[in-house]
């Protein structure tokens, strides 16, 4: 596949991502081998590709569910206030919840999710994040499984977007500054 002009460079190519997703799936499968009632909760829209690839590699039975959120202030910076647009279909009480996120940035969203699910008495609660930008963190959050740590650059692809563009690129690329400046 050709790389669009707006992409400065490919940061993580398709094979690198697939290999890491396989490793994460193997680790998760081992950790939950003796646990009944695993549910993966994917955060829309960004996590759907990661979720599709991760779920197929898991060797343990599980359900999938989705949650949709939005921040109160639209734009590139976040104050941390999160609005729940769609909740999970099934109750997570007594279930082993694994939150699936494409990217961990300020941490506000994940912090909100962890606090929300914690209050619902799951049997356990863990988080699985594909990409983390530690430099951007505003709030400390619990990360149990992590794909990649990356520098503070604007990345797109494999679920990550810029104004809904570039979300389905099969690799993760760095967006040129002039695109978002």
């Amino acid at each position, binding site marked *: 596949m050709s790389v669009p002009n707006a992409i400065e460079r490919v940061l993580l190519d398709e094979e690198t991502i697939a290999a890491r997703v396989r490793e994460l799936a193997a680790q998760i499968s081992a950790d939950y081998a003796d646990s009944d009632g695993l549910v993966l909760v994917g955060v829309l829209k960004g996590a*759907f590709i990661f979720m*599709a690839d991760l779920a197929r590699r898991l060797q343990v*039975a599980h359900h*999938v569910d989705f949650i949709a959120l939005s921040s109160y202030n639209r734009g590139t910076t976040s104050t941390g206030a999160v609005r729940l647009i769609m909740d999970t279909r099934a109750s997570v009480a007594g279930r082993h919840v694994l939150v699936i996120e494409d990217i961990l940035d300020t941490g506000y969203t994940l912090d909100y999710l962890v606090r929300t699910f914690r209050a619902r008495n799951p049997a356990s609660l863990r988080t699985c994040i594909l990409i983390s930008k530690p430099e951007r963190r505003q709030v400390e959050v619990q990360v149990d499984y992590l794909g990649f740590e990356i520098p503070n650059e604007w990345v797109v692809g494999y679920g990550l977007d810029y104004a809904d*563009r570039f979300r389905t690129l099969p690799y993760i690329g760095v967006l040129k500054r002039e695109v978002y400046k």
Partner: protein
Amino acid sequence: MGLRDDVAKVLIPEETLQARVAELGRAINGMYDDTDRPLLVCVLKGAFMFLADLTRHLEMRHEVDFMEVSSYGAGTESSGVVRILLDLEQNIKGRHVLIVEDIIDAGYTLDYVTRNLRTRRPTSLRICSLLSKPSRREIDVPVDLVGFEVPDEFVVGYGLDYAEEYRNLPFIGVLKEEVYQAAE
């Protein structure tokens, strides 16, 4: 893996499935170009895996959006009216919309979703469904692209579930009768 033991037979192996998804992607590449900027609408939950693989093959600029619907319960199916649990984030007025579905069965839900989206006046509205069970159709829904026509069997995998299980099988399989009969 225990889940695989519940599958009576593999109806569509992973390689066949992936090859057909690539073909569907090429067909969609022929339907739209960058200026059309189609919006792919995924009806959750079943279609998320298909969408993830299908979009890897798309060459034109496009966006994705999600809907989740639920029926009002027993006896309401034939009206097709469903509750919209998650509506589209985007306004589709004047947009080219492609609904991405995992399976079309009786057709009621898809018919309702189509009628609902049409009231929003998209420029075009097409449907791409991975699977179709023609023998089950109760209402005519014009499907533009179909991956596979399948017989009226209990299919699971690749997003399709039985009681929320089996969605993550990478192939389409037929569930053993004793699995769903034990629950009845």
